């Protein structure tokens, strides 16, 4: 039975316990200070806004506008405070971070066993395996490889991906001579999605490892960083989870490079600000984090939420909830925000980015059910709220704009003239109505832009970092362009997120379908298909506002511009050529682009080589390999047989229908009519049968051509030279 946090800390020695003695009080003060300033800023500006509404004549819509303003301004104030606090902490030093709370560098890790897990679900197999290879080699170079086992945890439901994963895993193991160090496991059913995948790993092998590190399919980590995380866990026995902060890397399109630049430039001050109030009650982002296995296994098996989808069922965004459950049981969760060497990739265009947001949106909205869970820490509720409002803010902003338009239309149709009365600010500022409105606008813009300006000042003070971004001038110019781009992108995000929230709440699924891309980026036809609605809305909305009041139209132009330019913006920012052009002009440079760490450099070179040498395979080609290739077939069958040793997998396979005569009939159909005659599920069933797969191999090679589908005849001919 795993020990609770205090028992565990006693068992592991008191080395760092003293550090935490006063922590709850200090954290309380930090939280109070941070959110009190947020409240003060929000309250003061809200009063100013309410005053403006009062001066123009209070109506029913004024109340709605005020409520929405308070919420929306509160949210941007939180962002602004993160920037301000983070800036000061970075400038004057932040002693309260996990890397400063104990001497972890000299900590040994003898006797420690760590699993590094790569959950994958129909992802690009080559990229997953190359990411693993890079991380493995990097850990090997630390001389500590003996403490680490690597697992590819596949949940893939595409038969081609499954076979390719096995094939590439075997190649990797052979090339790195890592048999017994790098493992592969595919689940029979992907129940519980990623959290279910990790849970299945823990149920099978979790007890072997003191810690496990979760990767995403596109994650890479430096070996030294991984070892540092293990050392930190060893030094701080009360810590249940440490989240590293992944830097966005490897973007090539203009969109990707802009996002990457923003992440690298603004990220550090935001995360320092977040760490200021979160401290040991941090959060988990689902990957690039080290987790203490025992408490995680004991407390973090997620319950199914009551009710139907979208809120009921499996918890989709499991990470926040898992962190909350650890915190509930008095385990600490930290952000190790100053550890470099943790990386992830991002979508290369606006449409892919929105697709990812759709998934995250549902997961975050689902947290509203957990928000009031009994016994959760207050800070966990704040983390949940911030995640929920990350998406809910969009429909609220849309509602604010629509309400404003409604009020304008109401006023115009009443044919009354504006009479601005005296207000709270009148005795001090003597502002006209327009000046008053402009003042609020300037404050809102300042709150939005202050963190960006502070990030640039932070850069200006740091010579090494300045060089890493290609110089202050280039970074400033890039930040200005990034700000213009994000201003155009924000209204589109607003429309997308509003749609996501609405469809999720109504229980309507969104089918994105396959994306049409050219080698250079999004095709024009695809952009028109995805953005025509936003553009049409922008035109209609703009025309309506123009007709109502020309002066107001110009205030609305920044919002409308994004909608009107959605199609070209989507196409051009997805272009790899424009990304490369911007790079050659010294725009959006990041430290990893100017001086790529060896692990990223190796990954980039290997991926480029793979792209050149391995042409994309036609559909079902990998099925042919699983059946015909003597080695691929042998790997697949061996893994199926090994799977049978696990009683749970054996039962699951039996439940699936493996071993029944129907599978042999399907296999006959596969040989006689080719893979097109079988559904994906049928192919998966055939490929899951450890008796049928070698039988297929033998039959395909001994039967005369006329007894095989023409598809097989063509596949066999490929082996003739």
């Amino acid at each position, binding site marked *: 039975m795993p020990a609770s946090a205090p028992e565990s800390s006693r068992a592991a020695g008191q080395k760092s316990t003293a550090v935490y003695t006063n922590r709850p009080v200090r954290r309380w003060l930090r939280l109070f200070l941070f959110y009190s300033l947020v409240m003060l800023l929000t309250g003061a500006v809200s009063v100013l806004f309410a005053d403006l509404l009062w001066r123009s004549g209070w109506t029913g819509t004024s109340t709605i506008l005020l409520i929405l303003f308070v919420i929306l301004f509160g949210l941007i104030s939180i962002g602004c405070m993160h920037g301000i606090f983070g800036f000061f902490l970075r400038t004057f030093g932040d002693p309260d971070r996990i890397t400063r709370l104990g001497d972890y560098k000299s900590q040994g890790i003898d006797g420690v066993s760590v699993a590094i897990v790569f959950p994958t679900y129909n992802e690009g197999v080559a990229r997953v395996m190359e990411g693993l290879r890079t991380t493995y080699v990097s850990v090997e170079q630390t001389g500590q490889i003996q403490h680490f086992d690597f697992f590819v945890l596949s949940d893939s439901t595409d038969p081609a991906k499954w076979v390719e994963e096995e094939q590439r895993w075997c190649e990797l193991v052979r090339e790195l001579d890592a048999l017994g160090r790098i493992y592969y*496991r595919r689940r029979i059913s992907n129940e519980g999605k990623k959290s279910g995948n990790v849970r299945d790993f823990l149920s099978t092998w979790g007890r072997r490892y003191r810690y496990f590190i979760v990767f995403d399919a596109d994650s890479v980590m430096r070996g030294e960083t991984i070892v540092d995380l293990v050392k930190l866990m060893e030094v701080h026995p009360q810590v249940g989870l440490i989240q590293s902060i992944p830097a966005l890397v490897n973007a090539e399109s203009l969109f990707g490079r802009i996002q990457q630049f923003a992440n690298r430039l603004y990220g550090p001050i935001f995360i320092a600000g977040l760490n200021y109030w979160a401290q040991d009650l941090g959060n988990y982002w689902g990957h690039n984090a080290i987790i203490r296995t025992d408490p995680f296994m004991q407390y973090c098996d997620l*319950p199914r939420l009551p009710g139907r989808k979208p809120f009921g069922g499996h918890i989709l965004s499991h990470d926040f909830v898992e962190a909350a459950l650890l915190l509930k049981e008095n385990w600490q969760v930290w952000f190790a925000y100053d550890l470099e060497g943790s990386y992830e990739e991002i979508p290369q265009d606006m449409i892919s980015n929105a697709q990812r947001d759709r998934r995250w949106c549902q997961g975050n909205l689902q947290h509203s059910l957990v928000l009031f869970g009994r016994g959760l820490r207050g800070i966990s509720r704040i983390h949940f709220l911030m995640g929920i409002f990350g998406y809910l803010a969009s429909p609220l902003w849309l509602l604010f704009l629509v309400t404003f338009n409604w009020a304008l239309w109401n006023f115009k149709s009443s044919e009354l003239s504006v009479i601005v009365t005296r207000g709270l600010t009148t005795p001090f500022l003597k502002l006209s109505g327009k000046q008053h409105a402009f003042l609020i606008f300037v404050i809102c813009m300042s709150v939005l832009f202050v963190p960006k300006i502070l990030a640039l000042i932070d850069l200006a003070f740091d010579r090494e970092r300045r060089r890493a971004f290609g110089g202050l001038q280039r970074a400033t110019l890039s930040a200005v362009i990034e700000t213009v781009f994000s201003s155009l992108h924000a209204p589109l995000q607003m429309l997308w997120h509003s749609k996501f929230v609405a469809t999720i709440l109504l229980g309507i699924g969104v089918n994105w379908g396959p994306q049409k891309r050219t080698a250079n980026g999004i095709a024009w036809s695809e952009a028109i298909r995805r953005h025509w609605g936003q553009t049409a809305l922008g035109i209609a909305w703009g025309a309506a506002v123009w007709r109502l009041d020309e002066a107001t139209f110009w205030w609305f132009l920044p919002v409308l511009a994004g909608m009107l330019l959605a199609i070209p913006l989507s196409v051009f920012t997805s272009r790899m050529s424009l990304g490369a052009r911007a790079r050659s002009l010294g725009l959006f440079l990041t430290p990893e682009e100017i001086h790529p760490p060896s692990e990223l450099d190796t990954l980039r070179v290997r991926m480029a080589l793979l792209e050149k040498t391995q042409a994309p395979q036609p559909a079902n080609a990998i099925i042919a390999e699983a059946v015909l290739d003597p080695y691929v077939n042998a790997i697949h069958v061996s893994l199926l047989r090994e799977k049978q040793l696990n009683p749970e997998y054996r039962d699951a396979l039996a439940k699936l229908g493996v071993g029944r005569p129907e599978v042999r009939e399907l296999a006959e159909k596969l040989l006689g009519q080719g893979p097109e005659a079988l559904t994906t599920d049928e192919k998966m069933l055939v490929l899951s049968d450890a008796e049928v797969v070698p039988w297929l191999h033998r039959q395909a*090679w001994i039967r005369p051509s006329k007894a095989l589908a023409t598809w097989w005849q063509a596949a066999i001919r490929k082996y003739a030279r």
Partner: protein
Amino acid sequence: MDLSLESALNAPGTPAEPSGNIAGRALDEWNAAYAKVESYFHALRIQNKVLLGRLVIHVLKRAMRRAPQEPQLSATELAGEEMDAVVTEWFGQVLQEAPVSANHMLSTRGRLALLLVDMPGKWQEQFLHPPPWPEEFIKAMREAYLRAGPDFQLAKMAPRPLDLGPIATLSNLSMLPFRKMIIVWCGLMLLFVALFIVTHNSQQNEHLLNEFLTWVRNLFH
């Protein structure tokens, strides 16, 4: 390894062949069988052409010997079966394991071992070669295995119930460790609301505010 097909073709008791036939099958049929056997050895990454030719002939010779007794089977089927038998028998000898016809365990194990010892790169000349084999090769073949995971250490993870009830929550809110903070923040917000109401509700309030502001100004002057 006998490379001549003559022994198979001129076996005692073999009736005279019509022109263009070999072992009772058309030449085209044997050509198809040859191509298929050759393709299989290609699939096993046998790159040496001399070796490849020898192996294909060896398999075909066995198929031709069987051909007269099994007229219902095509040349390709016979060659395919013989190819499978030759390879599996050889695996049995190298791995010291008896072939079991019902399952394909030996064939799978053998092919996997060939891959793991890198037969195409290091030991091509040993493939289907009769004993004796180099010690290193035998050892590598017999020890070759593929483990997809370490030994299981099965454990049961059980989800703990999470009380999500709103009534429980309402009572729980009062137990929040940050309740004092929340009270202060609510007070702060109320202050702003009060400030707004006082300054906007009536002329009397406005008068009061003006007096208050004058007092503040005087205070600083």
